[in-house]
């Protein structure tokens, strides 16, 4: 096992990884930007190194600088967390070339799954159901229109290199497609350096259900059931739970088997997630694969009792998985809510100075927090500042505990989405499991006119 690792990330995920390393007696090295000097994870690590200015390009995305710190500090491996460099194939490759272990899959797999067109082709090969769409990038708005007219509207435009909802738009007719194509292609070029677009049928009112997988370098793989992450705002997840409130045992097993086929076809190792869209008839279609640990991984940990970071470290160190599919069973129910520094009505960011932070306590309550009571929330990074996770013997108990906890939660000095989360988790439709991707649009936004 590694003796020392560098965590190439920030915020709550850096703290999360460091905590498991402490449990495993592994020393940790943190890196931080000028904006994060007082962040909790910086003092939690055994060693911390300032790597640059607040903007990510000048710190957290500076591959050379991070590798230099890793070498100088004597780290043997790098955990990339999520976001930032976690799905950067060049970083994975350079880490390995520097004689260090990248705690994640092979650079080639990251690269393939990062390109949505290549990922679709690979999944098709593995026999995983995919949404009808173009196998190649569409060259122009006219070509996209021809496809949409042949297969019928509505369609979804997507940036091949996209993520986080950027470059993605649902379109319902020729006129909208004309406008959306150019704008999204330009945006994708700006954000990802690649303006390639592809097009697929829009699955109306779907659920977003994803399968967690774990695979070792010896070819063993297991799936750790699903997470349902349908409640989203601006195409980004807000509430995640495990298991899904609606999925049948039969579909769960089928999705798990499909995911294992994907893993085997790719020669994948480490933790990964296959994301699917699921319609009312429980037909499921491959959406994308995340070749890293995910934000919402705690709900899977809660219902399986498995520490995913620990497994990532073991697999990266070359150990074989000791867990088999037969060992795994769903125990209870877990729900996670993401706490964002943002206006709960407009979803606009709200950077600023936190003046008070009260974290609730109680049975089955878990926190993953990036801030302290006096933290400055800067505009340089993602607005997610904490995650609150509630576990219960069943969904009702998890909701009950989450509801109690969220009403005790206090954040002052900046705006947060706590009021939005309270309304979501206490909504009758949420309690009934009516948690589709249109939840916010159908049940939350209409309530704002009354406030």
């Amino acid at each position, binding site marked *: 096992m590694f003796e020392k690792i560098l965590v190439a990330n920030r915020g709550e995920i850096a703290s999360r990884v460091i905590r498991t390393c402490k449990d495993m007696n592994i020393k940790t090295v943190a890196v931080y930007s000028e904006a994060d000097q007082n962040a909790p994870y910086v003092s939690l690590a055994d060693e911390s190194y300032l790597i640059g200015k607040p903007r990510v390009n000048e710190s957290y995305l500076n591959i050379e600088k991070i590798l230099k710190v890793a070498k100088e500090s004597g780290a043997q491996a790098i955990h990339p967390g999520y976001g930032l460099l976690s799905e950067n194939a060049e970083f994975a490759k350079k880490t390995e070339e520097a004689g260090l272990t990248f705690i994640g899959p092979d650079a080639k797999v990251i690269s393939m799954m990062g390109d949505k067109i290549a990922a679709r082709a690979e999944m098709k090969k593995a026999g995983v159901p995919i949404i009808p769409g173009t196998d190649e990038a569409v060259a122009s708005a006219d070509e996209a229109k021809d496809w949409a007219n042949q297969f019928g509207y509505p369609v979804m435009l997507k940036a091949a290199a996209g993520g986080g909802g950027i470059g993605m738009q649902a379109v319902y007719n020729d006129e909208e497609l004309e406008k959306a194509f150019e704008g999204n292609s330009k945006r994708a070029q700006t954000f990802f350096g690649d303006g390639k677009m592809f097009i697929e049928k829009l699955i109306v009112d779907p659920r977003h259900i994803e399968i967690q997988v774990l695979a070792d370098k010896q070819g063993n793989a297991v799936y750790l059931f699903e997470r349902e992450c349908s409640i989203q705002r601006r195409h980004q997840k807000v509430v995640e739970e495990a298991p899904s409130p609606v999925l049948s045992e039969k579909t769960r097993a089928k999705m798990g088997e499909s995911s294992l086929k994907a893993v085997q076809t790719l020669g994948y190792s480490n933790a990964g997630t296959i994301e699917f869209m699921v319609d009312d008839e429980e037909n499921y279609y491959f959406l994308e694969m995340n070749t890293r640990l995910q934000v919402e991984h705690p709900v899977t940990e809660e219902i399986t009792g498995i520490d995913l970071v620990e497994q990532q470290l073991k697999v990266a160190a070359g150990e074989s998985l000791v867990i088999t599919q037969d060992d795994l069973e769903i125990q209870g129910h877990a729900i996670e809510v993401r706490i964002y520094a*943002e206006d709960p009505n407009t979803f606009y960011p709200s950077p600023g100075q936190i003046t008070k932070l009260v974290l609730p306590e109680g049975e089955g309550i878990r926190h993953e927090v990036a801030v302290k009571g006096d933290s400055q929330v800067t*505009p340089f*990074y993602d607005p997610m500042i904490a995650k609150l996770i509630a576990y219960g013997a069943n969904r009702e108990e998890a909701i009950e505990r989450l509801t109690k906890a969220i009403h005790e939660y206090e954040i002052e000095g900046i705006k947060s989405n706590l009021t939005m989360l309270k309304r979501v988790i206490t909504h009758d439709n949420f309690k009934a499991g009516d948690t589709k991707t249109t939840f916010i649009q159908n049940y939350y936004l209409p309530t704002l006119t009354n406030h």
Partner: protein
Amino acid sequence: MNEVKASMAGSVWKLVAKQGEEVSEGQDIAILESMKMEIPIPSESSGTVKELKVEEGDFVNEGDVIAIIE
């Protein structure tokens, strides 16, 4: 004369209007990027863009002047 101010801290992702351009009320002058989100900054009045006070890539704080409309 009206000042168009940043509604929050962030960096100037794109300047939509040009100096000397006629703009109408509500038209975007610039787009800021804050916490990985694009925030449009519209003009609160119609007129001519007399001066742009920032360049693309600049970091602005809430209340900083982005443009002057005459």
